[in-house]
């Protein structure tokens, strides 16, 4: 649309010039070759992580502890979330980041033998051969960024696994109605 409007204005300018001095304009057209009009355009880099289909962005794990012991359950395995239509029209980097689940009401330091946080592993697969992995118990997560050297469009599957009590599996979790953590999946052009 922008390009078309520019061409129309250019023609109008030529007509006005012709009206101001028709003789010189006619002489010029006799000696010049065909005018060339460069046509250029830009395709901007574009990435989208896509959308969830019939799903929410919340991994609801329900009750986290064994009611008989107060310890974290050892069989927590939530259903993965699938991002459909993830797309990058250039080389890209996928990054996954996560924060431990923490008790939202019990915010003080727990007494000896207790913990108020849960670590886990967040894995984003499908975009790169090697999935992007973030382990919340680790201070460094070199596998959290993965590069893709070609444009791509497809699914990203986000999986949470390996839930463990922060500080050790022998620690009890303080009672709290809400433990919460956050995960992000990012696609960025370039690598």
């Amino acid at each position, binding site marked *: 649309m922008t390009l078309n409007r520019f061409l129309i204005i250019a023609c109008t300018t030529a007509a006005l010039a012709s009206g101001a001095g028709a003789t010189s304009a006619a002489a010029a057209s006799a000696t010049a070759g065909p005018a060339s009009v460069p046509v250029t355009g830009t395709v901007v880099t574009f*990435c989208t992580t896509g959308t969830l289909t019939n799903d929410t962005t919340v991994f609801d794990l329900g009750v986290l*502890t064994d009611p008989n012991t107060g310890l974290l359950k050892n069989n927590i395995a939530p259903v993965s979330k699938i991002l459909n239509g993830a797309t990058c029209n250039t080389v890209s980097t996928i990054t996954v980041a996560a924060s431990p689940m923490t008790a939202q009401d019990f915010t003080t330091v727990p007494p000896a033998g207790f913990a108020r946080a849960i670590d886990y592993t967040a894995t984003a697969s499908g975009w790169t051969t090697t999935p992007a992995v973030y382990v919340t118990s680790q201070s460094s997560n070199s596998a959290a960024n993965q590069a893709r050297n070609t444009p791509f469009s497809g699914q990203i599957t986000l999986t949470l696994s390996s839930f463990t009590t922060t500080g050790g599996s022998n620690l009890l979790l303080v009672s709290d109605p809400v433990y919460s953590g956050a995960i992000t999946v990012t696609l960025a052009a370039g690598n």
Partner: protein
Amino acid sequence: MGMRTLATAAVSLSALVAASGAQAQSAVSTSSFTVVGSAPKVCTISEPTLSSVNEVNIDSLDGSTLKISQLTSTTTLSTLPASARVSFNAVCTFAHTVTIQSQNNGLWRDGSSQPMQNGFADAVPWTGRIQWANIDRTFVAGAQNRQIVNFPFPIATPNAGQLLFDISIQAGSTNSVANGPLLAGSYQDTIYITLEPQ
């Protein structure tokens, strides 16, 4: 023509800005998620275990029944001293109250409900001590009247570990005169230890 050129330039500039803005927004895309769950209130307490600490004149801990070897002196017929420590493995994942409840307010003779007036005694007081979390408290089931008495102790934090309960009977203590004789019979009390929400 000048105005038209200027308008054209303005349009072109707008288009460039829009293109630039679109590029900044679409080159990076992020999806955010949350993971949530709950840790319900949990309290557990194990079966009692008899400790050798403070054990005096104790026959056995049979299940949850603590048996005193000999409650009275064969010569004075008054109360002999006895003591025991019973431990429980316990957990409470939240601020709670531990309550010691005595069903009889002392060891009462079966069938008795009021102190005797004839110089004989039919109940024996006991002293309890609880150590749990950050508390170490002593209390007395005085045997003045046969009734349920509660000794509640609030605990401000979660706790896990051993709950220690000491019970002791002083020599010569009765619900009548000191060192008074006890009526023949079976003496007992039932003590409940409860961990519950505050």
